[in-house]
């Protein structure tokens, strides 16, 4: 797959020692990096580095600047993100870097899983990058949706629920690798199409072809000429789907609702659909 936003292992191997290319591991398992990682890669912790410690929100512009400055990332560096589980959290970080306007950010196709399954080298040495003075831009609100945007979108825009079918229907409240004790209702936002994020990935975690990805969305009845909001449970899987739609398929006006079902499914007075059908506005 040829796309500026995506690099393959061959490209990565040729740039492992390039000082202007920063490989960053963002993993669902935040201890994976400590075990081993791609040579010269640094790590970001999706929770402690990228989320506000008190409010349910991202770190702000100043916090993001301080984080990347301390990590030794410059504004003109090419940032290559990778992680486990089909790049689930790496895609979230990619969206995050775009949100704060980083110029050149890419995703390693297949992420850590494909790298591991292909038997490519992982090392334990941690690189030492000199601190920088990173300057972030204001958040790009065109790629981030809030709950009011979602309510307005019911029946007028594309809503894409990228969770598994059982979560969409309300039979499961969380992905099956997590306990199901969450205290909130199950279901989905009325009119949302269910296109699980995982359908965009091959077994090895790499993305499917452009033709396959286009067929995936159009086959589910999504009119790619309309504005689209993607959501999941907390906005990470939907960042993966946002990457597919916005970065690989080049669809305009796609945003990620990072409040996602944990927020929507706890709101008072909003419409909810249960079962396998999208429901009506």
């Amino acid at each position, binding site marked *: 797959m040829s796309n500026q936003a995506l690099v393959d292992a061959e490209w990565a191997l040729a740039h492992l020692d390039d000082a202007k290319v920063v490989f960053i591991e963002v*993993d*669902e*398992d*935040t*201890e*994976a990096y400590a075990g081993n990682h791609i040579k010269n890669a640094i790590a970001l912790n*999706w*929770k402690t580095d990228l*989320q506000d410690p008190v409010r*349910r929100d991202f770190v702000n512009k100043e916090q993001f600047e301080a984080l990347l400055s301390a990590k030794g990332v410059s504004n003109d560096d090419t940032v290559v993100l990778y992680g*486990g*589980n*089909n790049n*689930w*959290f790496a895609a979230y970080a990619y969206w995050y870097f775009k949100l704060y306007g980083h110029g050149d950010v890419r995703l390693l196709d297949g992420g850590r*899983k494909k790298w*591991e*399954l*292909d*038997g490519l080298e992982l090392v334990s040495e941690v690189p030492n990058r000199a601190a920088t003075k990173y300057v972030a831009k204001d958040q790009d609100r065109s790629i981030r949706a809030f709950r009011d945007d979602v309510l307005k979108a019911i029946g007028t825009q594309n809503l894409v629920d990228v969770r*598994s*079918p*059982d979560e969409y229907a309300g*039979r*499961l409240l*969380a*992905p*099956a*690798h*997590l*306990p*199901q*004790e969450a205290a909130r209702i199950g279901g989905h936002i009325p009119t949302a199409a269910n296109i*699980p994020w*995982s*359908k965009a990935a091959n*077994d090895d975690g790499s993305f499917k072809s452009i033709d396959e990805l286009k067929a995936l969305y159009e086959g589910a009845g999504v009119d790619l000429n309309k504005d689209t909001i993607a959501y*999941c*449970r*907390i906005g*990470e*899987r939907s960042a993966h789907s946002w990457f597919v739609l916005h970065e690989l398929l080049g669809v305009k006006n796609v945003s990620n609702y990072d409040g996602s079902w*944990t927020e929507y499914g706890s709101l008072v007075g909003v419409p909810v659909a249960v079962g396998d059908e999208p429901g009506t506005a």
Partner: protein
Amino acid sequence: MSGCGAVVGGVSLDNVDITNQAVIQGVISSGNAPASVGYARLLDRNDEFVAEVPISKQGEFRFFTVAGDWTVVALVPGANSRTQVQATIGKILDVDIAVIK
């Protein structure tokens, strides 16, 4: 806010009420020993992806779900295998999977 993230080997059962959910867990082995690198993937009755976890260094994995028919796919470098299971609420189902390369 807990994440959607997969914990290596699966989330611990400590402090988890399993009376209202079904647990599918086990060990993936390869070459007569636990696999140290690989992934366990859970598919639903329609073969749809539901979740995936990196296995622990001892080949362990764990899923939390509801009653019904599920498929566990074991992925290790160079090979994979599928195992069908039936889960029951309130029960821990142990599934050991040997992947043959």
